[in-house]
């Protein structure tokens, strides 16, 4: 019954010649304004195999996937699919060639039901072209049941927690007859059980002769699932080897190009005893009774899976979002909740995780972006002293080595790392006591990453309390003096740098309740 889904067919979706590579990319290059994203990259996928694509953020993985998906077009190189030369000019072309990409940024329509999103690429219709809603619902329910998913197909997708949205996104790949499935960091918000489920699904795909490109930077996953690994670094192809030839160290060496300690230069001294930020019993729609302290000169790292409430906490403590209960004290003074003006006045500010939406004013020049928070400093009687302002920005441009052709460059034309530095200088020009950084290295290339780490270290060294929200384990362990773990809006663990281990942190992040509500029948 219901065997019309590719995943469960007895036969592969199409006649696949095992001898011919499913995908061959040769000499792929891509340039963006100011950035060379990819340079002469080769990639070959074999049918029925899992090929891992690895690299740090900014290595060029996302660009390569987007070229495969038809979102970007390469500037150089050729592509062959099952032995045929192809040109992929749009996502439509890509789908037609049997490529299905599962993006890390969830590509679902919030307003649609889960079932409809599963069939977004093509609604099943009857012979009159009328959408068969019954079939959509039953097929979706059937698919979920077989892969052991406890999600209501009729639920509005936007109302689901992020982890479930990601599972829906993965399930979508199964509803279509693809011969190449690309998964971009599919586990970034999944629980270990969900990850296991994902791997079961991947194995069933490869059994059908489908080629899987698995993009990740998590070593353990790659060792478990992949047959072959290709590593990219700074937009260049570094290595392609069977997984058996790799060790942890060799992979890291390939990915980072140096030893991990270099990434986290720690130069600051011990933290002061003065409490710069104290949060007591904070509750919002998503958070429940969160309490913690951060001392001057200390980095407090918050870890949690997607949807655990990290961003919500960040926004609540700087006064951006309303709270239900609790008190926030900045440097010993009570802060009015839901009022960023008071927050900034007391010296607490947020470096948002979403630079584009909440940080950058893309159309405005670099200097205006940098001086936004401290503009009043450069003004007399309401008039801005532009010379003084630009002079001040200039010192930060030099101090942070911000690469920009001029102060008047539109900030949207800068690379991610430089944008992040501009936003950091926005706060440093003002002079904060507490800075909350939310995923400070998202979408930033490796070189800039270590610079940002250096800056954070420097900030703490200068006496700021740094509250860091992150989902990157190395970042958390490398930078924090103390680690606090969130799960479903609650603090589930708090430990010192010395006590913290990856395992302890993950256990706390998954939490007992997490397991209960993500019940799967695999």
């Amino acid at each position, binding site marked *: 019954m219901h065997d019309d889904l590719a995943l469960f067919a007895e036969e592969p979706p199409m006649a696949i010649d095992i001898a011919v590579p499913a995908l061959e990319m040769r000499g792929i290059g891509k340039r963006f304004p100011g950035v060379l994203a990819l340079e002469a990259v080769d990639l070959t996928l074999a049918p029925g195999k899992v090929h891992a694509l690895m690299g740090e953020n900014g290595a060029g993985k996302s660009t390569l996937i987007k070229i495969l998906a038809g979102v970007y077009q390469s500037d150089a190189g050729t592509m062959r699919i099952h032995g045929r030369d192809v040109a992929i000019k749009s996502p439509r072309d890509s*789908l037609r060639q049997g490529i299905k990409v599962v993006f890390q940024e969830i*590509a679902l329509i919030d*307003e*649609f039901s889960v079932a409809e999103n599963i069939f977004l690429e093509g609604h099943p219709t009857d012979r009159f072209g009328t959408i068969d809603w019954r079939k959509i619902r039953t097929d979706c329910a059937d698919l979920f049941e077989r892969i052991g998913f406890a999600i209501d197909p009729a639920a509005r997708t936007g*109302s689901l*927690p992020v982890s479930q949205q990601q599972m829906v996104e993965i399930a979508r790949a199964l509803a279509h007859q693809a011969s190449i499935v690309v998964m971009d960091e599919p586990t970034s918000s999944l629980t270990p059980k969900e990850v296991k489920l994902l791997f079961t699904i991947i194995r069933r795909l490869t059994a059908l002769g489908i080629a899987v490109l698995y993009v990740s930077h998590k070593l353990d996953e790659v060792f478990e699932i992949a047959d072959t690994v290709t590593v990219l670094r700074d937009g260049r192809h570094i290595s392609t080897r069977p997984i058996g030839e790799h060790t942890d160290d060799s992979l890291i060496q390939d990915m980072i190009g140096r030893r991990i300690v270099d990434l986290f230069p720690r130069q600051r001294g011990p933290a002061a005893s003065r409490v710069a930020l104290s949060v007591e019993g904070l509750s919002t729609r998503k958070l429940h009774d969160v309490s913690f302290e951060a001392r001057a000169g200390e980095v407090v790292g918050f870890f949690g899976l997607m949807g655990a409430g990290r961003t919500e906490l960040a926004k609540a403590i700087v006064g951006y979002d309303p709270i239900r209960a609790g008190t926030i004290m900045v440097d010993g003074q009570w802060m009015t909740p839901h009022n960023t003006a008071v927050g900034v006045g007391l010296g607490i500010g947020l470096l948002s995780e979403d630079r584009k939406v909440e940080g950058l004013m893309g159309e405005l020049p670099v200097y205006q972006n940098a001086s936004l928070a401290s503009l009043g400093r450069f003004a007399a009687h309401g008039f801005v002293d532009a010379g003084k302002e630009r002079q001040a920005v200039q010192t930060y441009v030099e101090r942070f080595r911000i690469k920009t052709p001029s102060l008047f460059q539109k900030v949207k034309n800068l690379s991610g790392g430089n944008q992040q530095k501009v936003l950091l200088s926005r706060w440093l020009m003002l002079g904060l006591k507490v800075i909350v950084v939310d995923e400070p290295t998202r979408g930033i290339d490796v070189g800039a990453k270590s610079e940002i780490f250096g800056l954070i270290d420097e900030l703490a060294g200068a006496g700021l309390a740094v509250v860091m929200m992150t989902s990157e384990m190395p970042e958390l362990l490398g930078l924090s003096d103390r680690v606090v773990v969130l799960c479903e809006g609650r603090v589930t663990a708090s430990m010192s740098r010395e006590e913290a281990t990856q395992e302890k942190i993950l256990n706390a992040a998954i939490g007992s309740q997490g397991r209960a*509500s993500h019940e799967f029948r695999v």
Partner: protein
Amino acid sequence: MSFASDRLEGAPSVWRRLIARQEVAVLVCLLALLVFFSVSAENFLSTRNITNVLGQASLALIAGIGCAVVFISGEVDISIGSLLATVAVPLIVVMNDTNSLFLGISAALVVGLAVGMINGFLCAYVGLNSLIVTLGMMFVLRGGVYLYTGQRAIADEAGLDSFIALSDGRLFDVLPYSAVIAIVLLAAFAYVLRYRPFGRQVYAVGGNSEVARLAGYDVRRIKFACFVISSLLATCSGIILAARVGSAQHIAGLNFEFQVVAATVLGGVSLSGGIGSLGGMALGVLILQFLSNGLRSLDLPTEWQLVITGLIIIAAVSLDEVKRRRAHGD
């Protein structure tokens, strides 16, 4: 198989989903309005009056479908008022020359199609802001009609029975044909939006055009089609209006776009795209029509009608916003 849906956080029950819908709030408003006017205004609840209002509402209902479709796709079209006046010219001129309603309507549709294609081309393919393009088009069309007609109405000389029936005729002597047409078109497009892949693509494009593109949709072609649909439906409204006024009126449809936009937003169709339904739009139109009819029955002067309509629009849109904020929790 049992789904643990009710145990999951954030999955609202059917009932909560229902009352969270704007359509329900609008329906309650409409019913309240009907009850109020039935009590306070004589003759309001007569079959004749109700069917009259449905006939009057047909113009905004038909054009409102197009307006809603364009809104759902994430764009706007404010050239429809001028288009109402524009298409009546070829309709009446050709009909007067040929004595054929079919040829007249064809001519009107050709003009409407051309306008829709120009709007669609400029917005979807060239990538210009649709508000600006259709604002410009609004001026161009209105000015063009003034130029062509020398600011004089063109009378229907043919006097075809079929054309007159569009204005005076009633199905079973009860429901005006214009209302019948509106209901048929509403049903047809409600079907398209719900049961044709194209309809779902329109929602997807408006909901998140990047996601739609990744799903392989030709976003530009879909938006283009929406503009064409909007123009063609406004053409239908223009034809019915021409029948109701027995002529091509150069001043027809002034401020019509405001009425339709207001009714559409009132009915819960979001200006930001991807959200809303034709049912909601229709309820929005009916509220404004019954309001204006009821206020006329109460013998309130124009100025009060304007004030009350303005207040209702602001109130409805504010409530919508409050509700949305609560739903999204910011």
